[in-house]
């Protein structure tokens, strides 16, 4: 079986661990071997939280530089920071709503220009899907559903060996009951946005 390597990067508190959980559960439903890893601890205090997910016959639980097939970023500058994980065939999906780190506020760094950032990423990888996932999550009626919007876009690429149906079932069983409806809506909005950008 082919191996698919996915990196999800986000800022602590953006809910990326839940998206990994959903994908892991979907893999379990699909009988696809899956291994994942994430960094806890210090990173949770507003730092970067990176998860690696590996689908298929593989024993490693982490992904080396230049070896991700897909990169999903919850924040545009973090997509740029994680570019070291990409190769020229990588597909990058990123939210475009920035969350400037505190170092920008105190003037010890400048936030990259969003247009330039997209040009840079597109010039280095095979496909970039970039949009304001926060706006779509609001449209879905749940501002916390950025993770689900991005999962929708990820599902549209068809890179993961998972069916849309299984991911949706996992959303139904793994996310809070009160949010299932808005989560599914957010997922669909992300899916069609990625379709539009194809």
């Amino acid at each position, binding site marked *: 079986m082919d191996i698919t390597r996915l990196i999800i990067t986000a*800022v*602590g508190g953006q809910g990326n661990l839940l998206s*990994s*959980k959903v994908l*892991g*559960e979907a*893999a*379990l439903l699909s009988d696809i*071997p*899956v*291994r*994942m*890893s*994430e*960094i*806890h*601890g*210090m*990173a*949770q*205090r*507003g*730092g*970067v939280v990176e998860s690696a997910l590996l689908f298929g016959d*593989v*024993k*490693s*639980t*982490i*992904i*080396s*530089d*230049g*070896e991700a097939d897909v990169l999903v970023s919850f924040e545009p*500058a*973090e997509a*740029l*920071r994680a*570019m*070291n994980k*990409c*190769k*020229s065939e990588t597909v990058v999906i990123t939210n475009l709503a920035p969350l*400037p*780190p*505190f*170092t*920008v*506020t*105190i003037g*010890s*760094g*400048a*936030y*990259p220009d969003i247009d330039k950032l997209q040009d*840079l990423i597109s010039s*280095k*990888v095979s496909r970039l899907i970039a949009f304001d996932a926060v706006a779509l999550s609001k449209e879905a009626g749940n501002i916390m559903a950025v993770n689900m919007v991005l999962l929708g876009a990820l599902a549209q690429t068809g890179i993961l060996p998972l069916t849309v149906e299984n991911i949706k079932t996992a959303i139904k069983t793994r996310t809070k009951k009160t949010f299932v409806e808005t989560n599914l809506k957010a997922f669909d909005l992300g899916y069609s946005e990625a379709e539009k950008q194809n």
Partner: protein
Amino acid sequence: MHKLLVDNPGQKSLLLGNEAIARGAIEAGVAFTSTYPGTPSSEISLNFFQVSQESDLYFEYSTNEKVALEVASAAANSGVRSMCVMKHVGVNVAADALMTLAYVGVKKGLVILTADDPYMFSSQNEQDNRYYGKLSGLPILEPSSVDEAKEMIIHAFDLSEKLQEPVIFRTTTRINHSTAIVEYGALKERITKGDFTKDPFNYVTVPAVSRRLHVKLLENYKKSEELTNTSEYNFINGTGPYGIICNGVSYGYVSDAVNDLCIKDKVKVLRIGFSHPMPKSVIRDFFNGCEKILVIEEGEAYMEEAIKAIAQENKITIPIAGKTEDLLSRLYEFDPALVRESMAKYFNIPYKAIDKPDLTDIPEIPQRPPNLCAGCSHRATFYALQKASEGMETIIPNDIGCYTLGFMPPLSVGDFLICMGSSTGTAGGFAQTTDKKVISVIGDSTFFHSGIPGLINGVFNNHNFTLVILDNETTAMTGHQPNPGVDMKGLNFEGYGQISIEKVVKGLGVQHVTIIKPYKIRKSVEAIREALDFKGVSVIISKEPCTLYEKSLKKKQRKPFYVSDKCKKHKDCINDLGCPAFFIEDSNIKIDPAMCTGCAVCAQICPENAIMPVKDN
């Protein structure tokens, strides 16, 4: 029902490594569990804690790792299967107990879990605890994956009972914090009560007894040498002239690399899972037919040293390499590509690295370091501390917890840190040898863990320093575990005591003790100033609950603040506090209402009084 208590053999679940380990222990019928929380081991204990709420499993958050091991050693010698969980550096704290417990042994299974942290994702060092096996003479088991960890922990209990010795179970962060599909097995019955039979000539380690017990330990060691040589956890895959010996997560990287490099017919791999004692005869036989051998292990050259010694004893001269400058490092963690490349290099296998895009034109991306939460009480205390000591030359030994992050500007509270509790001990040394004002900071949990002896030392030896105890009523850093100062009743947990830090400090004879509410800046500054003026040991107890924990408990929330148009953009708020709720929009200073916890510290330091609570509506 807790998901780890489900009695449904064959069920497949997606589990975090730490959950899988806890499940394995529960399947093994563990009945007594103890810990001091420490990343990356914390979720094992968290799950034991939760399971203990709805079953007869006993679990405790012990004061520190030494105590955790002591209670567990007594339980195991009373005939109850026990497990003691800690991070790697915790074993240093427990080492005094460990070394002689190895002499005494156990009656029922005792598994000591050490979670090592290569790369130091959340630790002060990356020591390789396999050497504790050598030092103590105890057996070590090391899994290579989440699913294996669950199975292996069950075996660890059996092994412990077979040898009547504790077994060290060593994981690394990438086992603890990886997730995989795990198949549930059957649950063994939990036997929660035992008995202790007096036998002082085997239990009371006076020299005459220990001289005999050491003989017993060495006999046990012989037995474990036999067991490691026949252990299913030391297995060989494949055949071929290239020999690889590996352990832990490296085994996964090696297996993947064998596929990626298409060298299945050329390599044989020995995976060591029972790593102390090393399986001498397995390794000796493994040498047969090998042209050269590469040892792939994170951390120190623990296996490599043993393997080279075994080769020497058997007059084997094939090349054996591992930790050399151009191959594998003693530093940090490995990754699949690094292992693949080292294998290709050492065995001369043609290999083309993946084309990585040129990233030289990517602009510098602003750093995103971890920061104290918005509204964290430590920020308030640290600000007051800096104000109170303005103009003084200070040395600030700090300690381990969220508040360690305060060493970063703008708060810059923290000058020296070596281990848990070191703030109180080192304070005396700095005070004695310099003329600077020494101010130590320590959290409540760390104070109980190992800060108290240093404070006693300061009082007894009449050192001159101020100790600031940051009492936020939880062990925040590792995920908000309780500590002996916590009001457990208030959290709806029955059956706990509560120790008052104030009474402890006063009881130790500290002459100047003040309690401050850190969100009240002016009063806090005054109180700290007085404490700094005091000659001798003075203590400030800064009391305010962890705001993140309060939020998670859904306690009453304060109103957020906003920056009104009175703001003249001095930016004192941003520059002096570094609170992440602040941001700048079109050169205006703003507060994110979703992050602001209403602590009002910024409002008190704004020279224009421009920061105000959001009005209703």
